C-alpha cells in the first residue's frame, strides 16, 4: 500500500463522516449490554499487547489480530 492509497482511504473516511444521519437501528439507550466491560474489545491493553507479542515472536504470521477499535457508541 502506497501513501497515495492511504491518502485516498483517509479522504474516503472523512467523506463517510458526512453520513452520520443514518437512523441507528440500535438506539443509544439500547447499548447497555454492549457497554458492559465484559464486552470490551480490549479489556486490559497491557495484557493483550504482551500476549500478542508472545505469539508473534514464535509464529510466522503477524498483524490484524486484536482489537480493531470501536466500542459500543454509547455516548
Amino acid at each position, binding site marked *: 500500500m502506497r501513501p497515495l492509497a492511504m491518502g485516498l482511504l483517509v479522504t474516503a473516511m472523512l467523506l463517510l463522516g458526512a453520513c452520520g444521519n443514518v437512523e441507528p437501528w440500535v438506539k443509544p439507550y439500547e447499548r447497555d449490554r454492549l457497554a*458492559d466491560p*465484559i464486552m470490551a474489545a480490549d479489556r486490559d491493553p497491557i495484557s493483550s*499487547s504482551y500476549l500478542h507479542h508472545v505469539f508473534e515472536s514464535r509464529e510466522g*504470521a503477524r*498483524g*490484524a489480530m486484536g482489537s480493531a477499535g470501536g*466500542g459500543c457508541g*454509547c455516548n
Partner: protein
Amino acid sequence: MAIRAAPRCEWPISRVRHLLLAALALAGSAAAGVLPEDRADLLYHRYDGGGVTIDGPSLLVRKSFLEKFSVSGNFYMDFVSSASIDVVTTASPYEEERTQWSLGADAIRGKTIYSLGFTNSEESDYQSDTAYFGLSQDLFGDLTTVSLGYSRGWDTVRRRAASGGGVDPTFEEDTDRRQYRIGVSQILTKNLIIGATFEAITDEGFLNNPYRSVRYVDSGSGTGYSFEAEIYPRTRTSNAVALSSRYFLPYRAAVRGEYRFFTDTWGIDSHTAEIGYTHPWEPKWIFDVKYRFYTQSSADFYSDLFPRAQAQNFEGRDKELATFTSNTIGFGASYEFPGGWPRFVQKGTLNVRFDYIIFDYKDFRDLRVTGLAPGTEPLYGFNAYVLQLFASIWF
C-alpha cells in the same frame, strides 16, 4: 566451535511487531468517540518453554486532560535466559535483557480520535524505533467505527563478537518496516458486535538472524551434516485479514470468536482461530477461558536439511518458518476492589492470566537426538506456559 548466541535467536522474524503492539496498547485501545479511561497497570509477565525463560515487568499509565486529550506511557522489560533447541544444538546458552518504552497521545474532535505514538526498544545487539499514527471515526449513528493505522519502524541489527562479550564492530545492518492497518467495527444488534481488520506489513533490509545457521548434508562430517549461515531475502510483504465477533449472552456473560488468514511473499500461509468465554461471578469477579488454534505452512526457502552447502540463494532453518501447529488454552480471573485509598483511586482490579501452549513442528527435527541418519531424527515439539499477574487502578 560453538559461538555465543544472542537473544535475536528468540525473536526471529517479527522482531519489531512488539513495538507496534505496544503502540496499539497505547493508541488502539480507544473506542471511537470516547477517550480511553484514566488508569494505571503494573504487570509481571513470565514465559517458560522450550528451554527459554523470559520474564519482567511492564507499567502502563494513561491520563486524560481538558476532556479532549489523553496521554500514555509504557515501560517494559524482558529478562531472557535461553537454552532453546537452537542454542543447545548450534551455540551456547546466554542471558540478555531488553528495555522498551513507549509514549502515546490521543486527541478527540467530534467523533474522531487521532492517535500518535512512539516506541523505542534497546538491547545489546538490536535497537528499534517505531512511530505510529492512527485515527478512528464513528459513523452511521455510531453503530460503525472505522479505524486506520500506520506505523514506521527503523531497526539497527548488530552482532555480538565471537569472543570478548562486546559487539562485532564489523557488522551493522538496518531494517525498515512499514505497517498499514484498517479496521471496521459494526454493532449489529443489542447483543452483537462484529469486526474486520486488514493489515499489510512490508519489511526491507536485513531480515534474517546473524547468529542462526542452516543444516546441510555433509558426508565428511561425523554427524553426516554441517551448518552454514542462513540467508533470507531482504524484502518481505505480508497481508493479514481477521474477522471477529463478540456476543452478550442472556445471563450476563460474553462469548467471542476471531479468525485470521495470513499470507506473505515468503510463501507462509497461516490460519488462526480463537474462541473465548467471559463469565462474571458475583459483583467483584470476572473469569475468562479461551482456546486458540494456529497453523502455518513453511516458507519457500525453509528446509530442515539442505542437500548440500549453498544449495539455494536463500536458506532458512528458523523453526518459526517451518510447518507447524500450536494449540493454546488460557484462563483468567479478575477481582475488583473498591477505591477510596488513596483518595484519587476510584476502583482497582487484581488479575491473573495463565496460558498453556503446545507447539508441534511438522518438518523441524530435534538434533539433540544423535546417532541417527540425517533427516530421520524425531520431529521437534515443546510446551510453554505464559503467566501474567497484574494490578490495575482507575483514577
